[in-house]
């Protein structure tokens, strides 16, 4: 495996605020990595440092083994940033030609058009006259112009409709098959889950979880074991004493035991031969758990996730 990106103890301070706090990670060739987190978690700042647009306060960032500002690195990366309005007074075709001239190897206009879904009509338009969706496609085409080995997308699908989104992620998968590495930021768990094979979860400038979408989801999710208590029902206190149970509550005629490990809870229920029936194991809704995590009040949940990691 070839390491493409290395961040080592990277911290970025704005005034006294730590936007990114001691982040260490590596990204390998061919990975599609989602940097996931709420607004203000440090996702964009991290991308900016990877691109050499922001200088880290401490730590090192290398792309292809070199600092990101080097020309030979720039020749191998392509980027879609948030809210970059494109150069004015030029047509889409002229801008694409211009960008192709920057790179030693470049994709043909034809390839760029097919990959991004721009059409002949768009090519003749002035870039500043494009609609929001067309601008995103142009910006995707600019990222691909130099046939880059490494792609950065900062919130790439903001402003895209569902079919453009699908097309976009299909293209990204195609690029991965060609051996490209892709790093993107998002604040939607769903999107990270669908598109990435690895999720790096950011919260308050720190990496709080890093793994496959399934791993991240299991860390995020809160499982619960519920049952209908029988005649000799146990008190809540007794239920809480079951290992791995973090919370007990009753809803309707069912009693819920919240736990990070439902296997242990179920085993205990049988071991103790508790008088219960109709046992159900459920995992809490992921998006709820994620929202909770990313909300300010979710600080204790973060602790839990941290402990779980």
């Amino acid at each position, binding site marked *: 495996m070839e390491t493409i990106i290395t961040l080592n103890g990277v911290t970025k301070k704005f005034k006294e605020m730590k936007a990114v706090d001691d982040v260490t990670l590596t990204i390998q060739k061919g990975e599609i990595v989602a940097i996931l987190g709420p607004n203000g978690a440090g996702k964009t700042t991290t991308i900016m440092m990877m691109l050499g647009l922001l*200088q880290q306060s401490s730590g090192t960032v290398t792309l292809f083994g070199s600092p990101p500002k080097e020309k030979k690195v720039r020749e191998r990366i392509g980027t879609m940033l948030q809210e970059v309005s494109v150069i004015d007074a030029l047509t889409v075709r002229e801008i694409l030609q211009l960008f192709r001239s920057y790179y030693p190897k470049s994709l043909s206009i034809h390839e760029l058009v097919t990959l991004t879904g721009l059409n002949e009509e768009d090519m003749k338009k002035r870039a500043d006259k494009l609609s929001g969706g067309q601008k995103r496609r142009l910006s995707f085409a600019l990222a691909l112009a130099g046939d880059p080995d490494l792609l950065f997308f900062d919130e790439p699908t903001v402003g895209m409709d569902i079919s453009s989104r699908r097309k976009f992620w299909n293209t990204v998968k195609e690029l991965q098959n060609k051996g490209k590495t892709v790093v993107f930021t998002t604040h939607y768990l769903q999107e990270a889950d669908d598109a990435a094979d690895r999720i790096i979860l950011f919260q308050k400038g720190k990496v709080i979880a890093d793994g496959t979408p399934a791993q991240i989801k299991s860390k995020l999710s809160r499982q619960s074991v519920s049952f209908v208590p029988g005649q000799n029902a146990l008190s809540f206190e007794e239920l809480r004493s079951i290992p791995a149970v973090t919370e007990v509550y009753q809803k309707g005629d069912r009693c819920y035991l919240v736990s990070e490990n439902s296997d242990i809870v179920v085993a205990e229920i049988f071991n103790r031969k508790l008088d219960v029936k109709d046992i159900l194991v459920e995992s809490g809704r992921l998006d709820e758990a994620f929202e909770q995590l990313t909300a300010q009040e979710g600080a204790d949940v973060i602790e839990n996730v941290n402990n779980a990691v």
Partner: protein
Amino acid sequence: MKMLITQCKVEIIRILRNPYYVFWSLFMPILFYTLFTKIFNTGIGNQEEWQAHYLMSMTVFSVMGTSIMTLGIRLVEERAKGWSMFMRITPLSDSVYFISKMAGQTFIHVFSIVIIFLAGAIINGVKLSAVEWISSGSWILAASLPFLAIGTLIGNMKKVDTASGISNILYLGFAITGGLWMPIDILPEFIQNITTYLPAYNYGNGAWLLVKGELPEWSNVVILAAYLAVFMILSIYIRKKQEAAVG
């Protein structure tokens, strides 16, 4: 090299497609020229000399405008819209970017000079010797430097609106107080007293003298060079300060 040529071409296309450039740097000077040499009777004795003189005024007005307005506002726009940041991630180096901007700008100046000179020759049949055409054209091209420096100074501003407001005021203010729109003798006395120290007068005066078969005065060169130095130092100083604030 391919990069540099494409970049230059793009810069030129962008200026030519800019309606402000076409209006202020080509249309207005030619319109004024026609008005004040053909339509209104200015009552100036030597018509031929006036036509050549005013042709220089208008060409200076045009190139000064492109230097201050087009360059400055464009720089602010590129930064405000995130475009310059985006360029920094491409392999295009700062130096190629800067060189092509300047080369594009120079090409546009030459283009404006040729068009307005041609307009003068066609509208009034202005006849100058080859040396006079070339020397006055070259003067207008070279002495635009202090105004380009003002352009980069304006280019440091944060908002496009402020930049365009201020550059408009400077541009028109310079043009009027420098005697580009009307001869200096017509201007109020207090302006006449200061005009020789202002950049536009010195810019224009070099060209006015050249078409009379004389050389620009030393003071013209010295004053323009001084303005160039001041604006460049200011521009660099502000840039450094802004970078320090960000970093």
